């Protein structure tokens, strides 16, 4: 406890007496974490978009005109028991036709086709759209209920593949960015510590143990990393709130991430990363230097 107080006071002296260097380090770390946080926010949104795209995919089973309500219910249960199926919903042909006409309002389809050409249908939503084709195939074997199963065909497959890739790219980028952030922050801290190599040697010469020398530097790393990341957290939050609101106003249908649970997780992660990397950077540099000085 005594030591901790000493470490903190020494760390504060160190920061105060090397103000310019510390300022430069703080700006660097802050900017790095800002980029990182931005990437995280983007990636969360990309992921969200991927899920959104994916959630729009479904298998539509057009039912034979001849079957009864009982048959339909049986069929619904059968489908629901298939693997990867999340839900099976009955769509009345009247509703379907109204919707269809609505979404092609510009084409005067109703003039061309006066009678409702659509049959009743089932809307099948999957838990994992990768299997959309397989499920569609399996359903289409039940010729007794349905002779026509649609799953969006090529488009659906593309959408599903694209959304999978989006998620993958997101993960790759986040991993890469994390590594990059790690390098930049750790290196920045290392440069500030190398700068005081002489001091470290002197401390060791007057009888300070490695732990005693490291303590203040590690606290300093924590303050530097934590302080910088706190600033970037606040800026990030402000920036996203501002920017996302504009974006949403312009594109209200776009599925932006607004859940504060997800966002707060990102903000907190940025803060935590800064603090941890600050400590890690200080620890790595100080250990290396201590090994070099006898």
């Amino acid at each position, binding site marked *: 406890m005594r030591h901790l107080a000493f470490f903190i006071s020494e760390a504060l002296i160190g920061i105060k007496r090397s103000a310019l260097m510390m300022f430069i380090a703080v700006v660097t770390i802050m900017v790095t974490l800002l980029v990182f946080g931005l990437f995280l926010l983007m990636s969360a949104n990309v992921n969200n978009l991927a899920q959104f795209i994916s959630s729009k995919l479904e298998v539509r089973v057009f039912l034979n005109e001849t079957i009864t309500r009982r048959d339909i219910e049986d069929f619904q249960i059968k489908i629901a028991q298939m693997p990867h199926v999340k839900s099976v919903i009955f769509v009345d042909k009247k509703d379907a036709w109204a919707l269809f006409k609505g979404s092609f309002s510009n084409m005067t389809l109703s003039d061309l086709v006066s009678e409702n050409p659509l049959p009743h249908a089932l809307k099948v939503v999957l838990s994992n759209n990768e299997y959309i084709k397989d499920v569609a195939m399996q359903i289409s074997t039940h010729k007794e209920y349905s002779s026509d199963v649609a799953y969006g065909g090529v488009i659906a497959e593309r959408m599903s593949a694209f959304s999978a890739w989006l998620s993958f790219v997101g993960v790759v980028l986040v991993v890469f960015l994390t590594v990059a952030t790690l390098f930049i922050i750790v290196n920045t801290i290392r440069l500030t510590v190398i700068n005081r190599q002489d001091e470290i040697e*002197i401390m060791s*010469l*007057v*009888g*300070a143990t490695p732990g005693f020398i490291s303590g203040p530097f590690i606290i300093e790393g924590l303050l530097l990393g934590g302080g910088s990341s706190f600033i970037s957290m606040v800026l990030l939050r402000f920036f996203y709130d501002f920017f996302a609101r504009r974006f949403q106003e312009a594109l209200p249908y776009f599925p932006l991430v607004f859940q504060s649970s997800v966002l707060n997780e990102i903000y907190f992660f940025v803060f935590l990363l800064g603090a941890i990397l600050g400590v890690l950077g200080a620890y790595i540099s100080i250990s290396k230097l201590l090994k070099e000085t*006898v």
Partner: protein
Amino acid sequence: MIRIKNVRKEYASGLVALDGVDFRIQKNEFVYLVGASGAGKSTLLRLMFRSEHPTEGEIFIDNFSLNNLKEKQVPYLRRSIGFVFQDFKLLPKRTVYENVAFALRFYNYSRSRIRRQVSQVLELVNLSSKMHHLPSQLSGGEQQRICIARAIVNNPPILLADEPTGSLDPDTSWEIMQLLSKINARQTTVIVATHNKGIVDDIRKRVVALEKGKIIRDQQLGAYDA
């Protein structure tokens, strides 16, 4: 008791700084180490302080071989040895007070005890008024005196002083050497590497003379020159 046993020191550059150096220093002795520039005085002191390792031979402090000292124990060795560095080695961003107090931080001393001890020792070297200056705001001699203050602040059983009066005028040098004598009288082994002929000749003590890394003279109550 310090025992230097057949020590040879060859630096990485191939230069042999010490060769076949072998002598003992009794507890509470006062020894001058003299010799021309580059004779190996600082090297010898650094070996006892374990900031250099001998290439051959061994050094014992209180019958304990420094060769067997574990890396972890080095700081504790150093706390029991006061060292006045030839190039001062002051922490550049710490005030005079902080520099001297640093050597007391390792102990569980109370804040007031630290303040008392530091003030006392700064009084001894006549630097109380400069307590809150940074080293860069001091004259050469003042810096040297902080270094001396730091070395003696905790009454170490051994004091190694490398050219402690190099930047001091004759009067101040005299005072500092009197101080070291007084410390020696209070049960501290003192070894002083020095070029100060006046002091060595006036305050007679044991003299160990080095020349090109070898001991050429070891004389009780000796003079600077043979």
